């Protein structure tokens, strides 16, 4: 027995994953220290400042990891998935009514000095329940009833979190689409949803015109890929389409302000083009009995409807404050706490790091309080400024490795539950990574969510530790017995 468990501990745990985890929390800790160093110079272990507190969080997180690895029967996670899910759901709802307003969101429980966000734990319980659901032997995601069940499991906490005004955390749930895709959900649906979100954002942030152009491009390309046959006629059509789309821009160059050309709105031309395209696609699809052409036409129509209704709803139906909220979420307008300012500051901080960075504790942008939330949501600024491109590369590679490794392990697993849960974990980390770093470098709107394992804060660190170590435990258990 002793031999067996020795072998178990040493060989069955995915040490590479654990080491990546440890590296990331240490990097986080060092950077939290750096981010507060100049305004509050003290020892990294000073418990009155954030680096010292983070040290406590790290120790407790490691304790949690040990408990999950050695004290909890991995089977527990599957059997307790539903009750835990329901319990956290209740917490999510209750917090709306009992919490204080923190920058417009109601998502924190406060017990004296300790604060925690049920939305963080909810990721874990949703992952567990989703894995339990999808791993049932008779579950088929392509069946509408089963799909709806999965959608409900993901959707309910997502909506409640949206109601807490925690848009970032809610967005993370969109990552579960990747899990569904892996388990057989149609890739085209995922693709359509992503395109729909893209069109929605483009319509509001850039213009309906650009959004419609993108839609046409996507339809053309997918039409091309879908048909599988590319001949000269296709290219002729594509070039005519492109020319027509560029026409308004050309007109803009040629037109005099009073001239006839300036009175033609680009949108009208585009509409005309789309209309012709839809009709010809439908006719062609019908004649050639080619289904994908008709679907492309439908997609085009749906896309245009989406663009127009987005614009119409946004400008005419929404109340002023709702509009403002969306504008702030999409980073279109400066909000009271100065969203545009934050991004500019954060990009200056990261950009000023250059290739090698300014060196440990030498950052100036992040330490004088230009970058807000510098030890939490904007911790990546400190990495970028003090460690430069190299530091960013290392951090991002560590994350990519971690996600990659989890996916590989998940694929190796013989238990559907472990596999699906693994994908859930990978998706969560991925979404956080993309949204958070994307935000600090101006690729994503400013949506406050932490960078997993790096950002200051106990509840986030604990949640990701639990999330990851449940997977390690599940995977280890399999290796131990198979």
């Amino acid at each position, binding site marked *: 027995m002793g031999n067996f468990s020795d072998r178990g501990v040493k060989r069955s745990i995915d040490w590479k994953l654990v080491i990546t985890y440890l590296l990331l929390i240490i990097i986080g800790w060092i950077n939290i220290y750096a981010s507060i160093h*100049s*305004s*509050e110079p003290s020892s990294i272990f000073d418990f*009155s400042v954030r680096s010292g507190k983070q040290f406590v969080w790290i120790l407790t997180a490691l304790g949690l990891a040990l408990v999950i690895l050695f004290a909890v029967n991995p089977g527990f996670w599957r059997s307790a998935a539903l009750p835990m899910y329901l319990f956290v759901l209740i917490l999510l709802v209750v917090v709306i009514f009992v919490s204080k307003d923190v920058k417009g969101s109601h998502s924190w429980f406060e017990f004296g000095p300790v604060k925690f966000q049920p939305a963080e734990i909810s990721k874990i319980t949703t992952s567990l329940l989703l894995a339990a659901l999808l791993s049932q032997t008779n579950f088929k995601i392509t069946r509408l009833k089963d799909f709806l069940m999965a959608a409900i499991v993901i959707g309910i906490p997502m909506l409640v979190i949206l109601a807490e005004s925690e848009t970032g955390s809610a967005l993370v749930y969109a990552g579960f689409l*990747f899990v569904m*895709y*892996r388990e*057989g959900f149609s*890739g085209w649906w995922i693709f359509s949803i992503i395109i729909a979100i893209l069109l929605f954002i483009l319509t509001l942030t850039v213009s309906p015109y650009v959004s419609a152009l993108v839609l046409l491009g996507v339809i053309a390309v997918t039409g091309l890929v879908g048909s599988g046959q590319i001949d000269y006629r296709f290219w002729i059509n594509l070039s005519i389409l492109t020319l027509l789309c560029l026409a308004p821009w050309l007109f803009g160059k040629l037109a005099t302000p009073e001239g006839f050309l300036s009175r033609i709105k680009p949108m009208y031309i585009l509409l005309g083009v789309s209309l012709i395209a839809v009709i010809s696609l439908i006719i062609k699809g019908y004649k050639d009995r080619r289904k994908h052409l008709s679907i492309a036409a439908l997609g085009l129509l749906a896309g245009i409807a989406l663009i127009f209704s987005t614009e119409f709803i946004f400008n005419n139906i929404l109340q002023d*404050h709702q509009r*403002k909220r969306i504008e702030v979420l999409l980073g279109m*307008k*400066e*909000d*009271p706490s100065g969203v545009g300012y934050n991004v500019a500051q954060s*990009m*200056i901080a*990261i*950009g*000023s*790091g*250059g*290739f090698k960075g*300014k060196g440990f504790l*030498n950052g*100036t*942008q992040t330490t*004088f*309080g*230009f970058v807000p939330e510098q030890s939490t949501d904007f911790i990546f600024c400190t990495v*970028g400024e003090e460690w*430069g*491109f190299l530091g*960013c*590369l290392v951090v*991002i*590679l560590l*994350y*990519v490795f971690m*996600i*990659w490794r989890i*996916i590989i392990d998940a*694929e190796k697993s013989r238990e559907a539950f472990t596999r699906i849960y693994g994908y859930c974990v990978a998706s969560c980390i*991925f979404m956080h990574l*993309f949204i958070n*770093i*994307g935000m600090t*470098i*101006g*690729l994503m709107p400013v949506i406050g969510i932490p960078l997993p394992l790096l950002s200051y804060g106990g509840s986030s660190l604990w949640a990701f530790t639990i999330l990851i170590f449940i997977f390690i435990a599940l995977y280890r258990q399999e290796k131990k017995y198979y």
Partner: protein
Amino acid sequence: MTTEGNNRSRVLLIGLVVVAVVLLGKLFQIQILEDKYKINASNNSMVYDLIYPTRGIIYDRNGKIIVSNKVTYDILVTPREVTPFDTLMLASALDVSPDFIREKMAEYSRNKKKIGYQSMVMLKQIKPEVYMKFAELQYNFPGFRGQVRSIRDYPVNAGGNLLGYVSEVDQKYIEDHPGEYRPGDYAGKTGIEAAREKDLRGEKGYHIYLRNSKNQIERPYKEGEMDKEAIPGKDIFTTIDADLQQYGQELMRDKVGSLVAIEPKTGEILSLVSSPGVDVSMLADISQHYNEIIKDPHKPMFNRAVQAPYPPGSVFKLVNGLIGLQEGTLNMDIAYPCYQGYHFGSHKLGCHSHASPLKLEEAIMMSCNGFFCYVLRNILENKKYKGIDEALDKWNEYVQSFGFGHKLGSDFPAELGGTLPTSKLYNKRYGKGGWKFTTIISISIGQGEVGVTPLQIANLAAIMANRGWYKIPHIVKESEGVEIDPKYHERQYTMVDTTNFQKVIKGMWRAVNNGPGTGCTAAIAEVKGLDICGKTGTAQNPRGADNSVFICFAPMDDPKIAVAAYVENAGFGATWAAPIASLLIEKYLLGETTRPELEERVMKGNLMSRVKTYN
């Protein structure tokens, strides 16, 4: 499934790599390719130094400045930069006690962590002379510096309620105006300052400086290329006549009530006095005086002119008379008897002694109560309507068309609408069918459930002057860059024809100009050659003596000014309100009074002891 699954996991892994490449690509761009984000090689950072815009100046209708700005200084401390210093020397330089400085420094060191590198305001609004003294010695006190701040200056005593005050925004204000303010900003909270806050405030700017890692400021960033200058607030031209306003303030001194003057043709408010008011000397730094103002039992912050719902008293007879004429239930030839009032059952609504019976013109001139009881009775018992409910609601509709019973919609903030009874109200109170004309008889003489603001009765005076229409009273004039709502240019017609107004106005003229001893109520308001038309009112006040009310306009043909005076607990309309209003008209039309004794009596009159306070 497995191969399919593997395919799909491959797609996802490729996606992961693509996203990582996108992130790294963007990082490569901002960290290596572009130098827009690099400040320079020597490891500097930027400091934003905010520049506050100067607030717009407020002018009167003749281009006279009523609110401008003056310079004061705040003393800022950056506790981290402070080195040991001579407390006594600093105290004498700043004109404060050494203990004050010790306390402040102790407080900063207690909150050291919270303050960090920030600067704290130690002293607010010190005079330029004091600042000069400090500036000479400043080199002795590293970490201390002065910051220019512009505060409001009031060259004319135009009354705090009209002008309004500017003060630092609090958390609630910031939340109510999302995206517009940050802590430390100032905003207009009442009066004109609030009405045109958006124009007056201007836009903040900033200088960007570079700071090295030792926290010393080195030089402007990019030679100031990225700086943004503050945009000063727009100047506002008001409709107020500063001289008239100041004169009105003096007339209303030591009295509780309001004095409102409007130019009838345009609806422009010429003066708006609410007494007692906040003294302009307190306005600039109102937070210092806030407790004192709040504790004043006469509630100086309460703007009676636009908020107080007073009973209009006999002034309201004009409205009822006009409605009667329009409805055809009254004409110029009908005469009613009045024997010391209107008798019904064992009750009566009393009146003073005068000739009887009389017709409309005399009834207005002498302000006969009995006559107007008949007038309202005929309106409410008109056979045209199904019952008193319908007749009363029709009456309500008429009265509403005179601007009563709802907010006028002026641009002055915090305006209230007064009260006006409907059949619903009486049905609720007495039960359906449980009330008749005699139940509500007091509304015929402007008592009971009728509540109007002084602005509304001034507007009534303007309606009389215009013979049937008004423009919504407003306080801001259109000027370059400052637009006003087009509604202020539109005529609002009452439901009564112009011809009917002519008849009533004759009575108003006679009320003032019929000559003493003829029974006219407002002979005291007569000014030779000005043809003032007026109507007195004496409104019951449950809290002590009656309120004195007077509305008037002048001259009768081509009116230039319409005035309403409302003085609480001052007795008959003719005793205080009529002289006050007529003096104001005289001042406006002639420039000075021809009746210095009356002016002196009014200005010296102190009625404060008669007023019961609310505490």
